[in-house]
Structures are given as structure tokens and as C-alpha cells.
């Protein structure tokens, strides 16, 4: 049996195809103007990698911000449940998942079976989301994926005093005009991001093991700072892209529901 999960977020769309208990293929694209368009494109890419067509899928679950608008999905489930389930499937010892998306961040507590127990989230303020890092990368004039590597080279990170993305952008622009070192600024930004995430995680409490999902999980400086402020180890998904965990969780639910 073939199962699929499709996660349409605010910035990226992801699809995962599973055959019984193993991942066959996955995809990750930048979103298109309409969620159904994003979902179709992501799914088509995953299907062609697996040499399958839409008719081969026995059950598909959609998730994410656009989950209710996906015509080919049999049902939809909140991304909170999907991230919890997906992370737990890859690393069964996971009890806390921190998902950092393009426009929100969530802390999710799961039980020993991967079921969600509790969560806290911020989707009102861009601080502590992927958008914050995008703005900072642009302000510093570096590519988003270079922000982490740039930050880890710093020995003297700057202190960022503000919380708001716009205020921090202004703060960083002032630092640039003062001639501050770019890696020190990148490191300060990573710290500010981790501090902000910490306030969300604290609301549910952290229980080990901990994993980070979403695009920001790829920023090594943010993850390092998060380890420090939370005082815990953060486990890696190794060969699985942390950005597809939500879609993976959706595919796992698809299997359960079929």
C-alpha cells in the first residue's frame, strides 16, 4: 500500500510518499500563489521520483497552513500532530519537538507513542520564525543558508537587545554602520532567535529527547544556541531532511486512516 503526506506551509510545500513502513520519496518546493497549486507541484515531484502516479496512492493526508484546500487529500490533520508523529517515528525517544516554520514556531510534547500531549505556539509575531532569519540574512547581505556557518565562526557575539524583527533589523543596521563584524552580528542574531524560541518552549516545558524540525533546524548556530539556552542535547534526524517531518507525519497518519 502507498501512502502520502502533503505539508503546505507559508513559505514551502513538502510531500512524502511511503510504501508500508518506509519512505519512498519526498519533495520540497517554494510555495506558489495558491496552496492547491503548491500541493500539486510538491506531490508531482515526489510521485515522479517514486515513478508513481496519483492513482497509486491509497490514502493521502494534508497538513500545514493550506491543508484544507488540497483537492487530492483524503483528509487533513493539524501540523502540530504531524510534526509530533513524524519526529517520533524517526527517533522514538523524542518527547519534545520544536518546529520552526516560515511564519510560526511551535513547541510540541509527545508521549512514548508519538501522540501529542500539549503544545505552545507563536504565529502572531515574526520574531522567532523563519521570516526573522530571512530578514536578518538580507540585512547582513548573506544567503540564508550561510547565516549559520557565518555565526559559528564568531568568538565575540554581539548583544541584541530587541525582540521585534523590525527593531532588530534597525539595531543590526546601526551595528553595520558602526563597522561591527558580520559573523559577530550573525552569532548575536542566532542567540536572539534561540532566546525567543526558549520563551515558547518554556510554556510546555522541555522533556528529553528533543528534536528541531522545519527549515531553521538547518541553521547550526540557532540549534547550538538552543541547546545552550534550553540546557539539553538536540538530536539530529541524520539522513532525513528536518523540513519534511510534518509531511512524513501526515503520511504516517494516512497509513493509520486507510
Amino acid at each position, binding site marked *: 500500500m502507498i501512502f502520502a503526506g502533503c505539508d503546505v506551509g507559508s513559505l514551502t510545500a513538502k510531500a512524502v510518499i511511503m510504501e508500508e513502513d518506509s519512505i519512498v520519496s519526498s519533495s520540497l518546493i517554494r510555495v506558489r*500563489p495558491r496552496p492547491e497549486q503548491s500541493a500539486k507541484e510538491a506531490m508531482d515531484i515526489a510521485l515522479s521520483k517514486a515513478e508513481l502516479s496519483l492513482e497509486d496512492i491509497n490514502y493521502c493526508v494534508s497538513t500545514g497552513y493550506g491543508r484544507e484546500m488540497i483537492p487530492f487529500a483524503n483528509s487533513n490533520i493539524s501540523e502540530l500532530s504531524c510534526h509530533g508523529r513524524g519526529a517520533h517515528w524517526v527517533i522514538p525517544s523524542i518527547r519534545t519537538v520544536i518546529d520552526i516554520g516560515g511564519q510560526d514556531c511551535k513547541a510540541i510534547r509527545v508521549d512514548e507513542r508519538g501522540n501529542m500531549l500539549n503544545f505552545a505556539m507563536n504565529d502572531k509575531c515574526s520574531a522567532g520564525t523563519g*521570516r526573522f532569519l530571512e530578514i536578518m540574512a538580507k540585512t547582513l547581505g548573506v544567503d540564508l543558508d550561510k547565516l549559520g556557518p557565518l555565526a559559528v565562526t564568531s568568538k565575540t557575539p554581539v548583544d541584541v537587545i530587541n525582540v521585534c524583527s*523590525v527593531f532588530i533589523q534597525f539595531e543590526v543596521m546601526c551595528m553595520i554602520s558602526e563597522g561591527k563584524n558580520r559573523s559577530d552580528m550573525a552569532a548575536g542574531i542566532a542567540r536572539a532567535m534561540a532566546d525567543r524560541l526558549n520563551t515558547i518552549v518554556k510554556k510546555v516545558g522541555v522533556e528529553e529527547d528533543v528534536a528541531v524540525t522545519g527549515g531553521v533546524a538547518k541553521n547550526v548556530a540557532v540549534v547550538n544556541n538552543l541547546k545552550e539556552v534550553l540546557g539539553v542535547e538536540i538530536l539530529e534526524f541524520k539522513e532525513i531532511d528536518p523540513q519534511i517531518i510534518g509531511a512524513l507525519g501526515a503520511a504516517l497518519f494516512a497509513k493509520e486512516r486507510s
Partner: protein
Amino acid sequence: MIGMGCDVGTSATKIIIMKDGTMAGYDITPIKDRPDQVVEKSINKVLSKTGISLSDIECCGATGWGTKFLSFDHTEENLIKCLSKGVHWAVPTARTVIDIGGLSSTAINVNEKGKSMEYRINDKCASGSGRFLEMVAGALELKVEDMGSLSLSAKERVHITSQCAVFGESEVIAHVNAGREVADIVAGVTYSVGLGLSTLIKRLGVQKDCVTTGGVAKNVAVVKALEENIGVEVKVPHLDPQIIGAIGAALCAQERLKV
């Protein structure tokens, strides 16, 4: 007595010179370059406009985020105090002042002597700030100063749901992509700014006359939305509302000399 007032804000520097209690001249320069150079240029502009030389200035009061960029002798003045004194000087009947600046907004209740009694400030979040309007203007390729009149020409105001300035900007782009009229979008944005500011004033309690200052006070649509949501008339000073803080800074510095 010749006094100078400097209000170095996060988006513009405002310099005024007062001579014997009247306004001799002023300058407003947006901060796009190095702030220290902008401040120096702005001061030189006012000096040449008024024909006053720097050595004639008997006192200088400075306020705002960027006072550290002033290279000559000045006294540091508290922004709340400056706004209160400045608004009292410009509109003596003012009892509530709402200053809407580049990054922060401040609501102050003042007494009949221009003394601040109580205030509320938002200097943590850019929601409803001048910067938010600049971001939207940039995204829509408009001039910030045109947003007010454009809003008034709207037929059907869009509803902006985001509070965060960054998310608000994305929401605006989504409305453009969905084919909404620019005027309708801008009207939604200016309305949301006015609505957000009204909650700051309500936390303080509005008194008549209510006066608005700062760069955003020049946006007629924001002022209108503010009036609608707080239920009282909101006056805008006849002279440029953006220089009220700088006027107050000059007044504060003059007062120190008298003591």
C-alpha cells in the same frame, strides 16, 4: 534667547531653532545614511535657513534614540517631557498627545501647564509604527506621504488581520496577488495602524483635546481611523507635527538656563 532643539529619531532627524519664544526655522531629514552625518547636515541647513551661527546658540536640548550622534554641547532631555512641553507650546488646550514615530508610539496625558501626568509607550513591537507604513509603501511602490489621501479614495477597505509588521507586509502582498485595488489595500493598512494606536490610548484614557504628533500624524487616514476608534476629535498641530519633540527639547534646555 536663542535655543536649539534636536530630536534624533529612528527614521528622521528633526532640528529646530527658537528665538525669543518663536520658531525661527526647522529641518527634517530622513536618516538613510550614517546618522552622525545626517545630523550635522540637518543642523547646518537650519543654521543657513535662519542666518544664525552655531556660536549664537545659547542652549541646545536633544532627545530621541540618536542623541549620541550630536557632536557638540547639549543637554539630554527626556522624550516624554519634550513631547509634553512641545505639544503644550503648539496646542495649549492639548491634554492627551499621541506621538507616532518611526519605530515607537507614545500616548501621554498632560496637564494645563504642559507637564506629563501619565503615559503609555510601545517601543517593543513595530506593529502600527511609521516603519510599518514605510514597509507597505515600499512593497506597493508608493510614497509614504501619498498613503493618506490614497486611502480616502478607497471603495472597499480590505481587512488586515496581522498585527506583526512583517506578517502585515506579506498580507499586503497576498492582497495584491489576489487582485485587490491598491487604494483599498492601503486603506486597510492605514485603518489597522489607527486601530492599533487607539488601544494604546485607551489603556491610558483619552482626554480632550487629543493631539497627534510625529511623522505619521501627517497621514490623514491614520488620524481619521484613530478618531473613529477612540471617539473623540484628534487635532494635528498647524506647524509640522513631526517637530514637536524637537520644540520640546529646546524648551526643556531653555528652562534649565532659567533655573
